[in-house]
């Protein structure tokens, strides 16, 4: 044990959290003090600050991955619907989510939207809320609506805990998440500079840990990981630098991320767990928390297919920015099968990339994809072509 380098120990801890489909970390957190509550949320974004301010643990639910055997969940979905809702239902029906006192379903697509109603029917005793976010980005219009939605959520969470949630409490939570976002920004910046030191399979696991750990603890973990990763020199390979995009909801299996890296690509940016990086900078925390959360959402948030681009020129700019600022040489589109948002967005993004002569490749996956060989081959060919291209 004594010989395990700290970075490996951290990653092993994250891996254990990731593998634990019974959410024991959540159960332990709840058991540590009486009356504690935990609230689940699905991708892409929910204002976790409000849940945290209520003294509750926000828990990211990202489907069942490739280790969960989906039996009951399949009975709820036709073959042409993506995997994440069925494995999430499986988690629910098998009691694995009993530790959650409620679920939040963000506005990401019609599947998750409809799942919110299914949850109301299947789990009538749990708190369930659909989180609508504005697609109009004017403060007086979309902002006003969003603030009123945040008010409603705040009131409902207050009811659940039995006491109102004050502005000061939310401000305190905003600070906690500002720290968390700053740590994750540092992690992403570090990986982009030294991707051989912080492989994406590890970065991913570190991020996943933040789905079940309290944010304060997670921030600490991220900082420790950066330091530990930097302390252990690892071989640098002549890989192609790529941005991975499309995995904002249903998750690819970890083996798929590893396969892409093994095939000769360094992933230098991605759209995994965007909730951790949705708000792009610090949210001011002095007295008007809901308005500030709203402004951050409207004017300073990440872009994904679930969000309307108000102007044609905006399309693809977020992705281009990722490519440019991270020094990427290409883009890998990895979208879940049957994912309308990701797949409808893709041709537009590809067009923007083509206009900027950024090479790309594309494939689909499911959270339980088992066969990695074709993906490895495709990513490998892509990496080779990038290197040839840049050598020419």
């Amino acid at each position, binding site marked *: 044990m004594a010989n395990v380098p700290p970075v490996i120990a951290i990653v092993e801890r994250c891996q254990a959290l990731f593998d634990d489909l019974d959410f024991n970390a959540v159960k332990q957190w709840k058991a540590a003090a009486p009356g504690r509550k935990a609230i689940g949320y699905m991708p892409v974004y929910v204002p976790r600050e409000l849940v945290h301010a209520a003294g509750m643990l926000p828990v990211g639910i990202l489907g069942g991955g490739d280790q969960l055997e989906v039996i009951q969940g399949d*009975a*709820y*979905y*036709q073959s*042409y*619907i993506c995997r994440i*809702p069925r494995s999430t239902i499986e988690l629910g029906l098998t009691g694995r989510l009993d530790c959650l006192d409620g679920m939040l*379903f963000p*506005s990401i*697509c*019609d*599947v998750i*939207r*409809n*799942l*919110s*109603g*299914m949850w*109301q*029917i*299947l789990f009538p005793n749990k708190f369930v*809320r*659909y989180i*609508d976010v*504005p*697609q*109009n980005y*004017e403060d*007086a*219009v*979309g902002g*006003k*609506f969003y603030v*009123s*939605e945040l008010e*409603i959520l705040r009131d409902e969470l207050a009811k659940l805990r039995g006491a109102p949630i004050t502005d000061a409490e939310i401000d305190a939570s905003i600070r906690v998440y500002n720290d968390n976002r700053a740590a994750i920004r540092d992690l992403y910046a570090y990986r982009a500079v030294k991707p051989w030191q912080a492989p994406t399979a590890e970065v991913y696991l570190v991020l996943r840990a933040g789905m079940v750990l309290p944010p304060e603890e997670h921030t600490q973990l991220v900082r420790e990981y950066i330091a530990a990763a930097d302390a252990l020199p690892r071989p640098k390979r002549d890989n192609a630098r790529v941005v991975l995009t499309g995995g904002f909801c249903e998750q690819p299996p970890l083996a798929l991320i590893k396969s892409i890296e093994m095939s000769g690509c360094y992933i230098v940016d991605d759209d995994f767990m965007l909730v951790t990086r949705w708000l792009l900078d610090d949210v001011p925390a002095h007295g008007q928390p809901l308005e500030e959360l709203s402004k951050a959402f409207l004017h300073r948030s990440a872009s994904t*297919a*679930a969000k*309307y*681009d*108000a102007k*044609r020129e905006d*399309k693809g700019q977020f992705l281009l920015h990722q490519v440019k600022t991270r020094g990427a040489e290409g883009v890998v589109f990895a*979208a879940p*099968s*049957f*994912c*309308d*948002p990701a*797949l*409808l*967005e*893709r*041709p*537009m993004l*590809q*067009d923007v990339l083509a206009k900027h002569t950024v090479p790309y490749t594309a494939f*689909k996956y499911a959270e339980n994809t088992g066969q990695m060989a074709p993906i490895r081959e495709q990513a490998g060919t892509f990496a080779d072509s990038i290197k040839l291209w840049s050598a020419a």
Partner: protein
Amino acid sequence: MSATFVPGNLNELLMCFDFARSLPETNALQNGMRKKSGKFIMDAERDGQSEDVCTYVKADLGMMLGGEVGPTGDPLPTPDILLLSYTGCFTFMKWFELIRHKYGCETVMLHVPYQGEGKVAPNMRDYVVKQLKETVIPTLERVSGVKFDIDRLRQYMRESAKAEEDLVAVLQSAKNRPSPIDGYFGAVYYIGPIFTAFRGMPEATQYYHVLRGEIEERVRAGKGPITPDGEMTDEKYRLVVEGPPNWTSFRDFWKMFYDEGAVVVASTYAKVGGVYDFGFRHDPDHPIESLAEYCLGCYTNLNLPSRIDMICRYIDEYQADGLLINSIKSCNSFSAGQLLVLREVEKRTGKPAAFIETDLVDPRYFSAANVKNRLESYFQMIKAKRVATAAAH
């Protein structure tokens, strides 16, 4: 010219600015019925669209790639404005973004919040009203060069409300035995004008007036519905249907019903462009608010429990034998969750339910033999259930 979607279709408002109205879903379904959509879909896929996504979008994009020749063979002008009424379907947003991206059309977004809690909260209504006043109307004014006249809007809405009243009477005539109409296949022809470019026009009002008169006459005469093969005389099964129809084999699909004496007495599809049978009418006294209410109340904007309530109510009020779900491969908005809808409706009504799978406009996903088999065994099931119920009494 403007383009907008059937759910959340603001026809009265668009008419105030002298826009001609085009509805891309209607173009797609027309192309489906004319057997043109298969090629368009494949063209769109060759152009980079995924095989997994909504085929309405691909049929539309394929048509545009082919030089924008409409279903009738006449060229369609490129829209001057895309009114993105984001009502009950996520795909709408991407659809117009795709068209804007390729053809540079101006787009104006109307975001209609989802009824996640099964009701329209005041903040949702305010938000839609505000967007109409501050974003949509000013944009339509600018693009058209026509100043907004609220009295003109009121006048169109008066027409709408009259037509809506008659439409409801037509659809509810199916409560009679025998039903004088088919509330799914036949209803397509009844909802056509009011769900598309004609709601608010005096001609549409007149159409519904005449239609209602004809249907009431059929009720008095005790007649069944008219089908493509003439009048259906022997009503054996009364069904409620959830989900849009298949368009590429529409006639064949319908025939599988009337050949067996099955009539659809109510369908959720006949409510996609507006749920009028529970009392909503466009209200000329509160025109903008009522446009907001209209959008918020569209069927696809209802949450799953509300959809289930509505179906159960139909089964009861229309004395239906059961529920048939036509699940559309393309359409997550309708389809995701339908298997739970089926279970819940069966549980609550005690009536048998059945599930078939087709697509809207992709002919590759209509398997006539499979659908026919399913339907036949479903009719058998209803019969068996009747015998069992009769024996129990």
